[in-house]
């Protein structure tokens, strides 16, 4: 269970709502977490607003369009020589991203255990899953563009489908790609002992994990609102 938070004079900080008052009235810092973690959370909050805006505008456009919206399970179906399987690519992409979240959680755990080798390989595995995800998303984009989906029109239904789809999945894919790079940079720094030299602190792995889990989280919402709805 969590250790009690302490003030710098060693007094135990209260929990719960009294803790909120104690934290906000503290004279040196509010959040009893490393500054990097607090900043990553605040960045993720701002990113939540961005994706929230995109998804909300997608909702608005879809509800208010008079034209019928393309049926996702038809648009995103793939056939391997037989009956088209609805959403199979998306199911695989979801599976990949959840797997990557698992490897990331393990990497964070290994990082705190100071097992640099396992941390490195788990982060590389996470990045590999991410790269697979982006490639599949790119494949999906080419398939839809070939079928005539454009930001301004498409043959399947309401004209606004293309712009909302490409904008939302594009931004998400960009975040995944940036995350892959971020993961690899930190992974190699772990491997090369950069953080040992800086005092043996592996919080950076957890902070990277926060970003990566956020990317998975956004996908949970996109999956529900764009593909299932």
């Amino acid at each position, binding site marked *: 269970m*969590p250790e009690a*938070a302490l003030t*710098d004079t060693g007094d135990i900080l209260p*929990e*719960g709502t009294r*803790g909120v008052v104690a*934290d*906000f009235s503290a004279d*040196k*810092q509010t*959040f*009893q*977490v490393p*500054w990097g973690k*607090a900043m990553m*959370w*605040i960045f993720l*909050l701002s990113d*939540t*607003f961005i994706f*929230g805006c995109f998804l*909300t505008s997608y*909702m*608005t456009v*879809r*509800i*208010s*369009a*008079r*034209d*019928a*919206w393309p049926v*996702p399970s038809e648009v995103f179906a793939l056939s391997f020589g037989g009956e088209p399987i*609805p959403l199979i690519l998306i*199911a695989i992409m*979801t*599976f990949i991203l*959840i797997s990557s*979240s*698992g490897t*990331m*959680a*393990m990497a964070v*755990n290994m*990082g*705190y*255990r100071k097992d640099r080798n396992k941390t490195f390989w788990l982060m590389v595995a996470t990045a590999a899953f991410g790269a697979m995800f982006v490639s599949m998303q790119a494949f999906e984009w080419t398939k839809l563009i070939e079928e005539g989906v454009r930001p301004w029109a498409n043959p399947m*239904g309401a004209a606004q489908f293309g712009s909302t789809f490409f904008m939302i999945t594009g931004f998400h894919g960009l975040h995944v790609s940036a995350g892959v790079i971020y993961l690899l940079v930190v992974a190699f720094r772990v491997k090369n002992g950069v953080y040992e030299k800086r005092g043996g*602190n*592996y919080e950076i792995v*957890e902070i990277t994990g*926060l970003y990566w*889990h*956020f990317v*998975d*989280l956004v996908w*949970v919402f996109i*999956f*529900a609102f764009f593909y*299932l709805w």
Partner: protein
Amino acid sequence: MAQDSGQQHPISIYMWIWGLLFVFSFFSYMVDYLDFQGLMRWSLILLFMFLKAGFIVGIFMHMAWERLALKMVILGPPVALCVFIVLMALEADYTFLTRIVFFGEITPLAVHH
């Protein structure tokens, strides 16, 4: 004075939640595959979505073990976002109805909203 040297929890809890995420994703996919419709479809999609989101934020992102101050600062604004989303949904529906009234129906078949 960052003293959070990383609360370590047994890795088993992460494995359990990881498994649960696969299960919820499978159920979400089944909602579409089995072609549920209407209220059943929407409520199940939203239920699994929020469950997955909750576990990712709470366990994987460690929020369940953070202090209330951080929880409130990060989770509070998205609640306000939800209010905004409800308002936008209401407005979009109004816009849709107004367009029907003034511009007429486009597709005679049931609109897939």
